[in-house]
């Protein structure tokens, strides 16, 4: 339950829309909810990943004023997929984390674009990919890797203390 609240606040678009701009570099902001969903899915499996993705995406949609359900679905898909295959990936390696998060962000962007197209949303593919999705993917890659390292360090410290 506590994890879900955390997802709702920090993984969801609430914190993202409020605190995200503070992390902006050259007008590119990271997709914090996506990173949180990926990290949770890796630790807790596909069901949790799917649920967290849905909740985070739904709140992100609501907070950003977009169409409800778009990010809820894409993030649920990402959460499910990474939760399902995460066990087979060597996610503790930064060489996997950075490109992995870049790829996931690109996939999420493509899925979001496809979904919006399906519902007749006028979005220029080239520009979206070049100026929004790709820079954000790179940012997510490095930020996500840093978060993974921080969590690993926190786990190790906790184990050492206990």
């Amino acid at each position: 339950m506590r994890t879900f609240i955390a997802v709702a606040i920090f993984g969801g678009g609430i914190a993202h829309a409020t605190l995200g701009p503070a992390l902006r570099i050259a007008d590119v902001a990271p997709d914090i909810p996506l990173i949180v969903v990926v990290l949770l899915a890796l630790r807790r499996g596909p069901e949790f990943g799917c649920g967290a993705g849905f909740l985070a995406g739904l709140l992100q949609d609501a907070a950003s004023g977009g169409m409800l359900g778009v990010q809820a679905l894409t993030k649920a898909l990402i959460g499910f997929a990474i939760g399902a295959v995460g066990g087979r990936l060597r996610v503790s390696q930064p060489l996997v984390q950075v490109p992995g998060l870049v790829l996931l962000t690109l996939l999420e962007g493509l899925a979001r674009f496809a979904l919006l197209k399906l519902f007749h949303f006028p979005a220029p593919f080239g520009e979206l990919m070049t100026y929004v999705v790709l820079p954000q993917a790179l940012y997510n890659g490095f930020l996500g890797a840093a978060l993974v390292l921080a969590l690993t360090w926190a786990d190790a410290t906790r184990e050492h203390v206990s």
Partner: protein
Amino acid sequence: MKTRAFLLLGTVAVVCLLLLTLQMRGHVAGASDALAIVTTPVQSMLSRVNRSTVGLWSTYRDWKNVRAENRRLREETQQLRVEALRVTETVEENRRLRRLLALRESMPLATLSGEIIAREWGGWVRSLTVNRGRADRVARLTAVIGPDGLIGRVVDVRPGASIVQVLTDPTSTVGAHAVRTRTQGIVEGEPRGTLRFKYMARDGSGIQVGDLVVTSGAGGVFPRGIPVGRVRAIDDRGSALFHYAQLTPAVDFARIDEVLLIVGEGNHDLASLFAPPMP
């Protein structure tokens, strides 16, 4: 387990697609409103936290900037003070040199300007070193003056410099007279750095405090009429043959930096060239 996961994914997908479809048809405005009830207060709270944090950070950065600016301004002030001192020094030097130049131009005798490069200010010897020497054809016993009056005489000539015996040197003697009474006498230096005017009692009965004493020209070393000092006090020794008058030197030896060496010869009275020193 896997079935449950796929079932969940399917449900999520269906819900999302349903939401999107209904939105396209304009039916789920209520859902957005319901979600906003949850999101808006949390957003407000987070925004406040964010603003406080950013405000704190901004305050810290401002403080750092103010500190840096303060340091920069302090350095600038220091530089400006040094600059102001330099300007004052230059103005003062300019004034001194102008006075010296005016004196030199009005002198009927050939002169050589010199700069003081060293001072010997112990009680035994009181001398100045001037950057003019044998190479400039400076001769021993050359009179050395400043815009205010007599400084002394050259006692040693070296290749690039000369040693000037200052009037206050204990071994210095200069023939002089009081301008007002024409009383003749000798100005002598004293070990404590003062000057005294030694004169015959019968000639000096009329000498008063404030009288100007100038060189007499006797002996041929110093031209006549160069101010030596003013009477500060009179030491009346009753029936003794000589009386003494304490003099305040016309020149402040400690502060003089440029001098004129009188290298020309001739019997001139220079009294009119010197502005009367303040009593």
